């Protein structure tokens, strides 16, 4: 460790902030445990208060020591962080390896004018350095300094000659847009919430509604579910509002910078070169009104670790036209366009039949469950559910119309999903492996699925870029063509490097 270079310290407010939650924990434990101890041996009850005081002094002392022994140095080649009271840790992060510098502040931290800074390097699921907590001014300074020094280190610019960042505000979410986004936000967790409440409240409701039957019962259940749905949707809307308040997307040199949040403020960077794929996301309601969202997928976050788990919203909500234009401003080669859906290859007609059969079976299963509930638990007009079977062809067509793929010039584009339609664009030089998968049922229908695997860490429930239900007679060709374009892109990239 050189020791030379610019030094920074944590903000003194770190001490009370960090100590506070620990003290609260200790005190509440003592409050719970105290009476129990007093019940067993009255003498020990006298010890509780001095114990508490000793604990508080120890915690405050520890935090003071932590604060004093935490040092941040901007050395010549690397960021050096020394931390720890008993177990010392010295970390050196070379500037050229730094990928993201994320600043986040929650409400209390904003009041205290402090912030948490996370410095990440490429390829790892672990944040490399977390500074809890520096002053907001220091956080901003660090962001700028690390950007400058990384530029110096990676482009051989002389120290002090790095030009000021070229910034370009790409997108700002205005108040109307924020309200629209909140109202349109349908979270999958909403259905989970509904199911959870239904399973808990079901027996309770059954007991309360003991005498009621027939139409009145169905009416009460439906109205109850609707009220619950609206309440959960309201909660979701509020959460979205808090999350995307003040959203702004800026291009700073070769990075995308996004800021968002009301209670918890996030300020993060995505290097353009780390973008693995683009995704235009449109769920049902958004499509109805002509809106869409743009997400970029990156590597470097383990699933669930980044603020959004590897897929960050570049544009949380805008008109479809705006989203497409913005994607082009970030990368001119992205083949999103208004008419792109007309140029997609789509699954054959027999795939639609396959979906219809699948949804029909699901509907029949639900009817069976309804009948069983009626027979064994609580009689109700379960035969109403037979109407669900009639919806199967509709669902089948909806699934079929929202699937497609195309091998573009520089990107492979795939589209999937009815409730949330996601159109992925993956550059060929970001495709890792090409996977051709044919389940037993697909083979029966003469279909197969081709996946373009990338390094972008999607959550388990996330959709992959895939050409789903390609006709069997075309799948070998599609797989080979996609692979060939990947090889070509790799060769072109290596030529560019020489």
């Amino acid at each position, binding site marked *: 460790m050189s020791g030379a270079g610019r030094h920074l310290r944590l903000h003194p407010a770190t001490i009370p902030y960090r100590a506070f939650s620990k003290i609260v924990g200790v005190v509440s434990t003592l409050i719970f445990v105290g009476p129990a101890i007093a019940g067993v041996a009255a003498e020990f009850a006298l010890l509780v208060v001095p114990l508490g005081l000793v604990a508080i002094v120890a915690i405050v002392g520890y935090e003071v020591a932590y604060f004093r022994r935490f040092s941040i140095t901007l050395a010549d080649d690397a960021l050096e962080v020394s931390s720890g009271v008993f177990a010392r840790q010295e970390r050196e992060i070379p500037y050229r390896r730094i990928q993201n510098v994320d600043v986040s502040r929650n409400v209390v931290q904003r009041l205290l004018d402090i912030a948490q800074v996370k410095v990440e390097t490429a*390829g790892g699921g672990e944040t490399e350095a977390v500074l809890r907590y520096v002053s907001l001014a220091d956080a901003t300074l660090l962001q700028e300094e690390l950007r400058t020094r990384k530029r110096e280190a990676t482009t051989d610019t002389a120290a002090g000659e790095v030009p000021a960042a070229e910034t370009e505000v790409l997108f700002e979410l205005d108040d109307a847009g924020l309200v629209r986004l909140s109202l349109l936000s349908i979270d999958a967790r909403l259905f989970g919430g509904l199911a959870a409440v239904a399973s808990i409240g079901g027996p309770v409701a059954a007991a309360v509604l003991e005498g009621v039957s027939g139409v009145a019962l169905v009416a009460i259940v439906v109205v109850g579910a609707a009220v619950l749905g609206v309440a959960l949707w309201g909660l979701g809307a509020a959460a979205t509002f808090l999350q995307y308040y003040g959203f702004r997307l800026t291009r700073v040199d070769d990075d995308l910078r996004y800021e968002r949040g009301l209670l918890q403020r996030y300020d993060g960077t995505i290097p353009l070169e780390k973008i693995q794929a683009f995704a235009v996301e449109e769920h049902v309601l958004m499509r109805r009104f002509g809106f869409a969202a743009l997400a970029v997928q990156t*590597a470097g976050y383990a699933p669930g670790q980044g603020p959004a788990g590897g897929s960050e919203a570049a544009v949380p909500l805008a008109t479809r036209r705006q989203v497409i234009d913005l994607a082009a401003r970030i990368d001119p080669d992205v083949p999103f366009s208004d008419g792109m859906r007309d140029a997609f290859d789509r699954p054959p007609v027999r795939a639609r039949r396959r979906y219809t059969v699948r949804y029909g079976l699901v509907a029949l299963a639900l009817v069976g469950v309804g009948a069983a509930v009626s027979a064994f638990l609580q009689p109700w007009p379960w035969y109403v559910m037979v109407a669900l079977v009639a919806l199967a062809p509709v669902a089948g067509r909806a699934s079929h119309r929202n699937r497609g793929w195309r091998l573009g010039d520089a990107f492979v584009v795939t589209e999937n999903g009815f409730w949330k339609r996601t159109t992925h664009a993956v550059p060929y030089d970001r495709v*890792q492996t090409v996977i051709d*998968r*044919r389940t037993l049922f697909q083979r029966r229908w003469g279909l197969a699925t081709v996946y373009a695997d990338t*390094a972008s860490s999607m959550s388990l429930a996330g959709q992959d870029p895939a050409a789903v239900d390609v006709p069997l007679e075309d799948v070998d060709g599609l797989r080979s063509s996609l692979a060939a374009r990947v*090889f070509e892109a*790799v060769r072109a990239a290596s030529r560019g490097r020489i």
Partner: protein
Amino acid sequence: MERLHPRIRVVWAVGALLTGLVLGAVLAAVLALPFDRPASTAVAAGGGLGLVVFALGGGFAVLRYRAWRFELQPDALFLERGVLTEVRTVMPFVRVQHVDTQRNPVERILGLSRVVVYTAGSRGADVTIPGLTAERATALREELRTRASEREGGDGV
């Protein structure tokens, strides 16, 4: 296209045997204790289940062996495998991060190894080629490493 060593079927069959033994023992225990059936019935039922599982697993092992193929193509490693779900994977050499050989105790006794190839992908993060003799596994690993380092296109991350 290259095939796996036939002895891999034995490895898979041994796995099926072990699974059958465990499931049969569990069934026998469940019948004997909570449900209080006589010991002979419990053992017979457990044994029957174990045999069925072993037979199915053994048959599956043969089918799996027949389905497995791989090939070193000019730019990529190509794999074909799967009985119920057929999977064909094209893994460009340039994307190969590293290559391991591995073997579990059963494989070691039978003189077989596995080659595991890692990329930076998520769905296809690693791919395993089982059923190779130790020499073939080492040779394949070296071949893959050579081809991966020959190509300077970058790992696409």
